[in-house]
Each structure stands twice: as structure tokens, then as C-alpha cells.
């Protein structure tokens, strides 16, 4: 894939600004080595996807970046400051949405701000804006159990956006929604990356999804878990979201990732 490699070289030459860096991160769960000396850089304002077979440590890495887990060795830096715990510079979007089932949509969206001590009227004003942005206007006073899976994840996304963190961590955010909704989410995510100046770290199992939404794809392989390859799809990014899936480069990259991952799938 010459054009992707060139693109990568180009980026290197320009000395891109990294929002998040992982330096030789290792994490063990008892005897299980989940991550070993993993190093990876996440360019600012771009979307990086962690892709790899089940159990290779994607969630573990994401939680370490979020500050929810401490690494056994190595360090994560966000804006050149070492991560020691959760912080207002990062927000998490959960695979199972993690909404408060006893709270209305607006309180859920405002919950991050509530924990930060923002006054009620102010945080509800902010929440209201993001509820409109994710297309849930009119559902402010509904409860999570009254919403579809896709709508619930919009609430989870609005909550993460409402705290205005510079880094958004998303662990398989679309895996619990139906295929049509998922495609819509992917398009929305692309425009989000374009319009919000945030760094996205995204985990998915879907190769197509990874190639569709990512500026950079880090392929993780298990035992020992490390980054085996970094791919930067770049050629089709500005050709419009509706054309991506027919782009020859898109199809090539999907094929190439599949051939490197297929040996890990029994």
C-alpha cells in the first residue's frame, strides 16, 4: 500500500502534535499479560482506532488512558502531563451506555457537569444544547428505559461531549446498536471529528468501521500484546462520506487488515 505509507511518512516529517502518548505501557492481571511495552501516539484532532482480536487488551489500554486502571509500568501522557487518574481532559463513552436508569435524559447528559459542581441551571443549559446536537430534542425528560439502544448511546455521547473534554475515549460505542443506526453513527462520528477539535480514541471489532472512521488505525496483536502495525487511511478522507465505501483504497485497506488478522481468528 504505497500511498498510505507515503502519507504516514508525510505526517512524520511534519512532526505532528500528539494529544496522547502511551510509552512502554505494561499491564498484568495476575498471570495474564494484557499489555506488554506498548507504545503508541495519538495525533491531536484525529481519530485513532484500536483494532485487534478479542482479548488483546484494547479495553485495558483505553481504561489506562482514562485513568480508571493503573499500568504496572510505563506511562500515559495527555498534553504532556502524565496520567495518574481520571481527569476533566478525558471523557469516556461506554459500550453498554452506563446511563443512570433512575435519572432523566437531561440529568444523565448533565451528570458529568453535576459531578464537577456546575450549578443546575447552567449545566442543564449546556446539556440541552448537546441533547439537540445528538438529535434527541424533545426527549429531555424521558428515562433511559423508554429509549431505543441507539438513542441511549446518543445520551452517552452527549454526556461525554457536555463536559467538553479534549480527548474522547470510546469503547465499542456502536456495538450494541442495530446496523442502520450504526452506519448513521459512523457518519455522525466523521463529522464530529471534523467539526469538534477533539482527539478521539476508538475501539471496534469491525474492520470496515475502523477503516471508515479512522485517521489512524493501530492493529494490536495478542501475546505479547503490542502494536503490530499502524495504518493511516488518508486518500479517501476528503471525498465525502458517501463515497468512502466504494473507494479502491478503502477496499484495499480492509483486505489488508483482514489478511493480517485472519490468522488470529479460529
Amino acid at each position, binding site marked *: 500500500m504505497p500511498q498510505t505509507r507515503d502519507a504516514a511518512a508525510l505526517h512524520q516529517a511534519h512532526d505532528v502534535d500528539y494529544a496522547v502518548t502511551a510509552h512502554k505501557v505494561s499491564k498484568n492481571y495476575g498471570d495474564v499479560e494484557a499489555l506488554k511495552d506498548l507504545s503508541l501516539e495519538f495525533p491531536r484532532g484525529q481519530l485513532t482506532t484500536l483494532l485487534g482480536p478479542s482479548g488483546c487488551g484494547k479495553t485495558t489500554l483505553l481504561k489506562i488512558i482514562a485513568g*480508571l486502571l493503573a499500568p504496572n509500568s510505563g506511562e500515559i501522557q495527555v498534553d504532556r502531563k502524565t496520567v495518574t487518574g481520571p481527569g476533566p481532559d478525558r471523557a469516556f463513552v*461506554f459500550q453498554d451506555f*452506563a446511563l443512570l436508569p433512575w435519572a432523566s435524559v437531561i440529568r444523565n447528559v448533565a451528570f458529568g457537569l453535576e459531578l464537577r459542581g456546575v450549578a443546575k441551571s447552567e449545566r442543564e443549559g449546556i446539556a440541552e444544547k448537546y441533547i439537540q446536537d445528538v438529535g434527541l430534542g424533545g426527549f429531555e425528560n424521558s428515562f433511559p428505559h423508554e429509549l431505543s439502544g441507539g438513542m441511549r448511546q446518543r445520551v452517552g455521547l452527549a454526556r461525554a461531549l457536555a463536559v467538553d473534554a479534549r480527548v474522547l475515549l470510546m469503547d465499542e460505542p456502536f456495538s450494541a446498536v442495530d446496523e442502520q443506526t450504526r452506519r448513521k453513527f459512523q457518519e455522525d462520528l466523521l463529522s464530529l471529528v471534523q467539526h469538534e477539535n477533539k482527539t478521539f480514541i476508538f475501539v471496534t471489532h469491525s474492520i470496515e468501521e475502523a477503516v471508515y472512521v479512522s485517521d489512524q488505525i493501530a492493529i494490536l496483536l495478542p501475546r505479547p500484546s503490542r502494536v503490530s502495525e499502524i495504518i493511516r487511511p488518508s486518500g479517501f478522507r476528503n471525498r465525502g462520506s458517501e463515497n468512502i465505501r466504494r473507494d479502491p483504497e478503502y477496499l484495499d485497506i480492509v483486505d489488508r487488515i483482514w489478511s493480517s488478522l485472519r490468522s488470529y481468528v479460529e
Partner: protein
Amino acid sequence: MTVFGRRLPGMSSLILWGLLWEVVGRLGVTFFIPPLSEVLVTLFATIGTPAFTKALSETAYAFTMGVTSAIVIGVPVGILMGKNRLLDELLLPWVNIFLSAPLTALVPVLMVLFGFGMKSIIITTTLFAIWIIILNSRAGVMQINRSLIEMAHSFGASPIDAFVKIYFWAALPEILGGVRIGVIRAVKGVIIGQLLISIVGFGALFELYSANFLMSHFWAVLIVLFALAFTISEFLAFLERRVAYYAAKR
């Protein structure tokens, strides 16, 4: 319950049992069971008397104090046990022992420790109610969805915030269930306390009526007690239904 395809209102079976009671009472099978109608007449005659109101207020006071302390102590202890492995290992055996222990046997010990007054009665009531409240609060916390906790943590929740805004609410359906059963046990506790420790309140009335073979008085007080316990328990069941919409979806 449905009879001949028609739904009967709840508690209709009580009418049947009431009728049976009346019949058995009229037949004069035993002095122990006077007719229900006679009991009801006695009930309305006694309910306004100073002796009765005094008994009611004494019992209500001990009951309220006992249940309140059981909740105020039991719920946080249960939640902390659910959160903290070490605390759980330390306390769980004791909670289980006291849950199934014959607490009545402990009452004399309480009398030695806390005297023959209201204090001992309140503590007895608390002891009857608290264990199931602890156990249920603990169970409520243990089933909580891990990602809710991670969510709160990732948005910077302090331990107090997590306790008040996540753990308590997530465990609320189980807590209310525990409080409901605890309250029913507390009714037992307060009467046993009043019978064994100092003869006051409803305990005194029971003692008085049964010693003098005033059976319709005895049953009248029992019915009042049952009605009070039933009302409180139904009120808690109503609260439980209020949170049921999320109990299944945590």
C-alpha cells in the same frame, strides 16, 4: 384471584376467613375465639380509651425509634459491606448469625446491659429489623453494574458522590425490600420487647387481656396491630413499585 372468570379485588379472601371466624365464634367452640362481630364492637369501643391511646403512642414511639435506627445504621453498613471486600468478610458471618439467631433469647442480656426501660425495647426492635436491611442493601450494591461505577469515576466523582448518587440509588429497590421485611420483623420485636422487658404499650394490653381472659379485647388489639403493620408494609411496597421501572434494568 379470579372466580368464575371474574377478577375479585385484592384481599377478598379475607372476607371468607372473616365469615368462617364469625361462624366458629357463634358456635362457641372455644372461649378463645369470640365471634368476629363481637371483636369489632370491642375494637371500636376500646380504640378511643386513654389506655389504648397510651399503649398506641408508647408502641409507636419504640417502633419508630427502633426502625429508624435500624435503617440509619443498616443501610450504610450494608452498602459499605457491598463495596468493601474486607469489611464484608469481617461482618458477613455476624450478620448471618444474627439474622437467623433466636433474638428473643438475647432480650434478657439487653435488659442487663440497658436496663428495663424504653431503651432496651428500642434496641430489641432495632435488632429484629436491622440484619435483613443490612443484607439486602449489601445485595443491592453487589449487583450494581460495574460500568456505572466506572462512569462516575471517569467523570471525577468523589467517594461521597459515588455513595450518594450511584450506590444508594442503584441499591434502592433491594434496600426498600429489606426495609419492608425489617419493618415486619420490627413489629414482632417491639411486642416481644414490651412483653419481656417492661410491661408497657400493646405488650401490656396483651398481658392484661389474656391474663383476664378478655378474648375479644385481645383480638381487637391484635387486629389493630395487624392493620398498622399491613399499612406500613403496603406503603413500602408502593415505594418499591415506584422504583421498579429501573430495578429490572440496571
